[in-house]
């Protein structure tokens, strides 16, 4: 399955490693203050507060994909294109943030501009990720209106109870995401005793033409709420969403530290009246409606050697089992066979349509496992963090395995090199992905 075009891969790796070496050994002396014997200084003028803030980051993010020409999703995406065994994608991203504070009022905006150059051509797009105004008359009461991300849930790679957020990419769970236009209130009360904190967060979310219209059925004012408790040293959230754009759903999450090095968390959601679209190997579609349950259980553990383990198991009750996934991939294969024999794209077009929000979404299957192992400062070398991440479908035993090296030793600069194979048998989720492997390099500068 690994047909690597060696010259392209070598060139790409050389580019990434050159960047790493150049920054590490050539620019370092200029970016640090070489002042070994210098007295410690703290210029308190650095602490002066300004009513406004402008910041963000700029990044260069090239990606190399090793294509799997026998995979169903390769056939679906590349059936009418001629590409080699690898394809590159060059990203340049700019995230800008600004805020202004006056008395009890604060306004905030975050924009994301992305330049992409790939086999599909060049695109540049600017999106307002967040833009809102908040009023905080007391520490207990905060009212906000505008575009924002709510980020509900405790999971690291997945958040089945994040009813008002766009899905996370488990390959990069800490990436900023675009929010929705909402109106919300946070009312918080602290106590002494086993219940230390309580927060009530009601949220109104309009879904009309031109306003949040990708969230669900338009023409509804949706209402959601979250109730947070810090009870017996455990974070507990109860949440629900109702209103018509999506079916009513209920959620629950928790997180707790056990000892100085161990954290455990979980998340659960129940979705009423979920409609699932299924296609068989011949392209016949059917629908079924049922109550879907999603849940996640996870932990973080830090060893004495500073190795961090993040482990999560995710049951995605709205996803497809291995037989359903196999049927879909068979249908794509049939569509491709039809296209190659007579040029008819009808079946492939149907498969593409079916992939929208179903088989083609970020995590379409039923059961997943996420394991991330990272080692802080190996061999006592500060600011280098190697890591390895496995994301796998536990039903068909297919997975992606990414190795990573992160360097944060230069103030405001972050360098990350990642790469790894995507492994699975024919008919399995990862085995039918369009790529055999992926290598990416991210150079991000904060300002």
């Amino acid at each position, binding site marked *: 399955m690994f047909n690597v075009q060696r010259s392209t891969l070598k060139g790409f790796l050389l580019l990434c490693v050159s960047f790493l070496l150049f920054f590490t050994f050539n620019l370092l002396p200029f970016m640090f203050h070489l*002042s070994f014997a210098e007295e410690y200084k703290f210029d308190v003028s650095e602490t002066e507060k300004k009513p406004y803030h402008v*910041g963000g980051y700029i990044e260069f993010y090239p990606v190399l994909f090793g294509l799997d020409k026998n995979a169903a999703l390769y056939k679906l995406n590349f059936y009418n294109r001629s590409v080699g065994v690898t394809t590159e994608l060059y990203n340049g991203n700019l995230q800008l943030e600004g805020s202004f504070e006056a008395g009890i009022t604060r306004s905030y905006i975050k924009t994301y501009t992305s330049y992409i150059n790939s086999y599909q051509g060049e695109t540049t797009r600017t999106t307002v990720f967040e833009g809102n105004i908040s009023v905080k008359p007391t520490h207990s009461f*905060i009212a906000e209106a505008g575009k924002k991300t709510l980020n509900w849930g405790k999971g690291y790679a997945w958040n089945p109870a994040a009813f008002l957020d766009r899905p996370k990419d488990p390959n990069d769970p800490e990436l900023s995401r675009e929010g929705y236009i909402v109106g919300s209130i946070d009312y*918080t009360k602290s106590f002494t005793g086993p219940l230390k*904190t309580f927060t009530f967060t009601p949220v109104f979310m309009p879904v009309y033409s031109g306003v949040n219209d990708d969230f669900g059925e338009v023409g509804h004012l949706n209402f959601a709420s979250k109730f*947070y408790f*810090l009870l017996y040293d455990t974070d507990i959230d109860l949440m629900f969403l109702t209103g018509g754009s999506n079916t009513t759903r209920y959620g629950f999450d928790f997180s707790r530290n056990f*000892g100085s090095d161990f954290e455990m968390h979980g998340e659960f959601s129940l979705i009423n009246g979920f409609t699932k679209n299924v296609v068989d190997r011949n392209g016949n579609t059917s629908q079924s409606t049922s109550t879907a349950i999603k849940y996640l259980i996870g932990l973080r553990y830090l060893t004495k050697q500073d190795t961090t383990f993040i482990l999560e198991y995710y049951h995605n009750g709205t996803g497809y089992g291995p037989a359903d996934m196999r049927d879909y991939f068979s249908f794509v294969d049939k569509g491709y066979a039809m296209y190659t024999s007579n040029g008819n794209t009808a079946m492939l077009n149907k498969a593409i349509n079916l992939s929208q929000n179903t088989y083609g979404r970020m995590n379409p299957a039923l059961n997943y496992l996420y394991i991330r192992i990272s080692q*802080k400062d190996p061999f006592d070398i500060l600011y280098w963090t190697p890591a390895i991440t496995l994301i796998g479908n536990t039903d068909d035993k297919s997975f992606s395995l990414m190795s990573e090296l992160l360097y944060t030793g230069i103030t405001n600069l972050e360098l990350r090199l990642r790469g790894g194979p995507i492994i699975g048998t024919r008919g399995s989720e990862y085995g039918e992905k369009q790529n055999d492997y992926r290598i990416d390099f991210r150079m991000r500068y904060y300002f």
Partner: protein
Amino acid sequence: MRKILVVILFVLATAMPVFAIDGTKLLEQIDKNLSPESYESYRKIINIEPDGRKKEFTYYTVKKGRDKMAGLFIAPASEKGRSTLRLGDNMWLYIPNVGKPVRITSLQSVVGGVFNNADILALDYAVEYNVDMVEEKGKEYLLQLKAKTKTVAYDRLKMWVQKDKILPVKIECMTEAGMLIKTLYFKDIKDFGGGIVRPSVLETDSPLYKGYKSVMIFAKIKQRSFKDEAFTLTFMPKMESLR
């Protein structure tokens, strides 16, 4: 002979209270001298590598009572807006890009370097430790401290304290088995105003990070009261409004 024995016993019996130092009260006094019960302050945290290269962070902190502490990174740009919260044994980190607080543990480090979260978000020593033993060593007391629970980052501390100022000079942090994890050095006693006189520099090194050093410089320590709700997850993204 009996008379001599009675005299010796009498002398010992009357002398004992002079030497029996109340370790718990001494530790509480150390906590009181290090910081007011409720205050705000600024810190510069510097990680220094063996070749002298440095990485610096500017950090605003607020504390209330014995077990509530919160902090906000104001520099460098890559860390700006990150906030931390500690309520007793519970710790969270808020990263603006991630958009929600996540639980962290005391042995992790939000800044890298030799300081871990327990050092950066340190509570009063008397909250986390019992005094096992107090010895007098010339101009210093030597306190042997034992963690009250398993959730505390260091199981044992050896604390050298200046007798005249009742302020720590050096603390050795150890595991249950007595292995040295790091040493904290308290330096440069400074008058911050408002009756707060305490070391302005906290230095640390560790046999686990040979040649590396981390330093915390304190500034603008000021007594200030806060509402309890400032120490909640909901408030973490809004911490800048406290400054």
